[in-house]
């Protein structure tokens, strides 16, 4: 027992040293990298960025041209819409297309997804809103659903009991449209703080995508035809104000796709996006999307045409870190606590 206790104590001390000493070094010595705000300007056909330093903010394009604050507003008219409208400088046309502030506002969207949104404990209960409510505002339902190996089950929250009737109706409709249980993954945005509801996109046991929502209390289920030789993996419902996309999808090769409301899947022309390891930010407007994909080693920007999803331009940055590997229990990539290097 004495040997065992001694060995255990030394192991604990070693374990704590591996955890705390590199952490102290990284905390004191490692400087965070300051990445400026970068966006694609369709006016210049170039990426432009703002970098803050002690001398103040510097606004530049990648080609090196410097801009004043007013000039910067003008080369990003969809982003600085409110400023330009307030100053009376909002243009009548952008790239030859007549524009109204409301129209631009309708088309603008921001989307962000971090790995810890996916790598996290999941409860397995979801709210399905009524997507064709007769009221102006969306309302949270009185029940939630869970997906079992063979069906969808609605649970009434007040009585904490299964609503068999609703469960059977939805299960039957989902099976009728070809959905095979168990559902592998699903994505929805069950909140009333949005303009409309598209329910959920689900990936069934055969890796086929289905769109499931509730309209006037009845199930609405649509099957989506997947591209050939592609195994879809992660789904992300979008519900952007412009209603031009239904979901973003990635496959097992980490390619990104857009699912449009007419259930067509189109590949986005970017090299790779792994939702479990990469951060993604998309800033969209009526002309293009600026997609930023950040990993531990790279911070890449892609300008994508918002109709064809083809790449217009790209800007790649290598990230360096002078930190040393450390034993840690938490990570920015997930929300689990477990030892890892």
């Amino acid at each position, binding site marked *: 027992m*004495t040997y065992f*206790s001694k060995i255990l104590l030394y192991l604990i001390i070693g374990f*704590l040293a591996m955890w705390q000493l590199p952490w102290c070094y990284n905390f004191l010595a490692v400087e965070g990298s300051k990445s400026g705000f970068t966006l694609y300007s369709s006016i210049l056909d170039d990426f432009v960025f703002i970098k803050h330093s002690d001398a103040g903010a510097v606004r530049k394009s990648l080609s090196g041209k410097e801009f004043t604050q007013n000039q910067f507003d003008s080369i990003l008219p969809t982003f600085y819409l409110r400023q330009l409208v307030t100053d009376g400088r909002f243009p009548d046309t952008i790239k030859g297309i007549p524009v109204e502030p409301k129209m631009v506002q309708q088309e603008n969207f921001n989307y962000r997804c971090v790995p810890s949104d996916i790598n996290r404990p999941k409860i397995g209960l979801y709210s399905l809103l009524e997507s064709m409510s007769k009221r102006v505002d969306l309302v949270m339902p009185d029940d939630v659903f*869970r997906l079992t190996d063979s069906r969808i089950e609605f649970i009434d*929250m*007040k009585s904490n009991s299964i609503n068999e009737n609703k469960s059977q109706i939805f299960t039957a409709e989902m099976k009728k449209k070809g959905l095979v249980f168990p559902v592998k993954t699903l994505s929805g945005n069950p909140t009333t703080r949005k303009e409309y509801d598209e329910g959920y996109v689900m990936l069934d046991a055969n890796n086929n995508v289905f769109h499931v929502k509730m309209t006037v209390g009845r199930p609405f289920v649509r099957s989506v035809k997947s591209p050939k030789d592609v195994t879809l993996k992660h789904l992300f419902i979008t519900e952007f104000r412009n209603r031009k996309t239904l979901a973003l999808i990635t496959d097992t090769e980490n390619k990104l796709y857009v699912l449009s409301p007419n259930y067509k899947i189109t590949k986005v022309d970017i090299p790779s996006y792994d939702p479990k390891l990469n951060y993604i930010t998309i800033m969209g407007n009526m002309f293009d999307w600026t997609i930023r994909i950040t990993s531990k080693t790279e911070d890449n920007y892609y300008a994508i045409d918002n109709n064809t999803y083809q790449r217009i331009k790209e800007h790649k940055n290598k990230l360096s870190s002078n930190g040393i590997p450390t034993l840690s229990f938490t990570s920015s990539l997930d*929300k689990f606590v477990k030892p890892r290097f």
Partner: protein
Amino acid sequence: MKAIFYKEWLKVRWYFILAIATSLGFSIFSILRINRVIELKGAGHIWEVMIQRDVIFIDLMQFVPIIMGICMAIVQFAPEMYHKSLKLTLHLPYSALKMTFVMLFSGFLLLLGTFFINMIVMNGYLSIVLAPELKWQILNTATVWYLAGIASYFLIAWIVFEPAWKRRLLNIGITLLLLKIFFMSDMPQAYNSFLPYLAIGSILIASLSWLSILRFKAGKQD
């Protein structure tokens, strides 16, 4: 062995009753809090907040088990160390190793009993008002806190048995770091995959007390 159990029970019986009353008080208060929210805003509100905002409604209890574990070790062993009566106990015609572990095991059983009663009370109420997924979300999260309570009991016993202050300070440092591991995240169910290892680790650290007992027996002062 029965006599040692009885001796330990006599030492901690009043504290045990106080610990049960206090922890039950916190459990029942948390339950009443949930019940009040249900009465005011409906059961749906509790479900939605738990599903969408990762709220577990029993956060008041987070540090109760660890405080109970620390107090149990102090109440059980500090007076004996202060009055040097542990020396007499260890000179009884019984293996010192067995004696040490029977003493620790009795405190561990009492703590476990306290936590078990808490779990039963919470499980009983939560099963009525919440879906199993939500109930386990709460109980799983609480399990980490209860494991911290058990680990704190064994670690504080290790500190209390240690005869020299210099070494005791080192033990306190190690204890603080080890206990920090149990409170690295507020995210419900964040520890799920790590939980079995934490449970095994929490039990294994009971063996550290034997090192302090050996030093105590040898009269080490540095």
